[in-house]
């Protein structure tokens, strides 16, 4: 059931861009039951989700000539690096080592395909594809965090940190929608 919820959110990520190495910091796929997320799996998803948007932002800085896209991409890189650092600091403090599972692998694979698509585009086509991806990505991640990760977190500090990061993703979603309207 949880996997279905996750995949439902991932359907919003068809335009998302990423690289499989987003999850290189995580250990190999765990053997946990598909429906039971561990804090280690949650940590892997958080690390991966932030790396996906950092990676997409770097592609936007390389390929876009639009100042609003570049400004937004810079903001995403800065903010998601800060969120990532905070997450890594917390799991390190908690002694949790991120462990990938099949859900992380699915997210990673979809992101890899979308990033490959972005790299074939340029000009306005790229800008629209990138910002559409950002809107879809942030909607999907907000859904995953609220519906799966927060309810699934066992450690209170991890649960609180996940709750605390939602406003950042919502602000980014609103920002991405403003940028799209301006294009």
């Amino acid at each position, binding site marked *: 059931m949880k996997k279905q919820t996750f995949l439902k959110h991932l359907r919003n990520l068809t335009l998302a861009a990423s690289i499989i190495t987003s999850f290189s910091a995580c250990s190999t796929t765990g053997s946990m039951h598909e429906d039971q997320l561990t804090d280690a799996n949650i940590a892997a998803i958080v690390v991966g989700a932030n790396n996906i948007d950092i990676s997409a932002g770097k592609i936007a800085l390389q390929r876009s000539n639009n100042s609003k896209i570049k400004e937004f991409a810079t903001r995403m890189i*800065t*903010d998601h690096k800060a969120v990532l650092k905070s997450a890594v600091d917390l799991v390190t403090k908690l002694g949790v080592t991120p462990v990938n599972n099949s859900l992380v692998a699915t997210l990673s694979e979809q992101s890899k395909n979308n990033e490959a698509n972005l790299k074939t585009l340029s000009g306005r086509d790229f800008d629209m594809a990138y910002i559409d991806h950002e809107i879809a990505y942030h909607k999907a991640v907000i859904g995953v965090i609220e519906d799966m990760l927060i309810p699934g977190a066992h450690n209170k500090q991890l649960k609180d940190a996940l709750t*605390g990061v939602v*406003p*950042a993703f919502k602000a980014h979603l609103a920002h991405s929608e403003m940028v799209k309207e301006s294009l």
Partner: protein
Amino acid sequence: MLFTKSLIEGKQIMTKLTVSLVLGLLLVLNLTSIYAQDELSSTKSHIILIKGFEFVPNVLEVSVGDTVTWKNKDYVPHSIENTTQLVKPSLSLDEGDTYSVTIKDGFNYKCGLHPSMKGRIIVLDNSEDY
């Protein structure tokens, strides 16, 4: 007889000195009190926290001459910008950084880095002597 007269005069002088000292002390205390009241009533300082991608409070009522300070409690940077150019935009505020302005008029503002974050300063009065 002379000794008694001198004694009485001495007591009168002492009494005058005591009264003068008490009056002087009261005057000093009164002036201090007036000064303190003036200090307290002239301006106030307000703090707006930036946390969870929100300005807290996002609407603040102040008087002209008050000081408003924003303090960033988030681990991502934020900034202060207003559309009417009444206030010079802040630089990027990292966690723990502050930005202060003296209020001359009310204005709407937003985070220059995250434009969905909005706030408002409302001036309740317009002091003539500011």
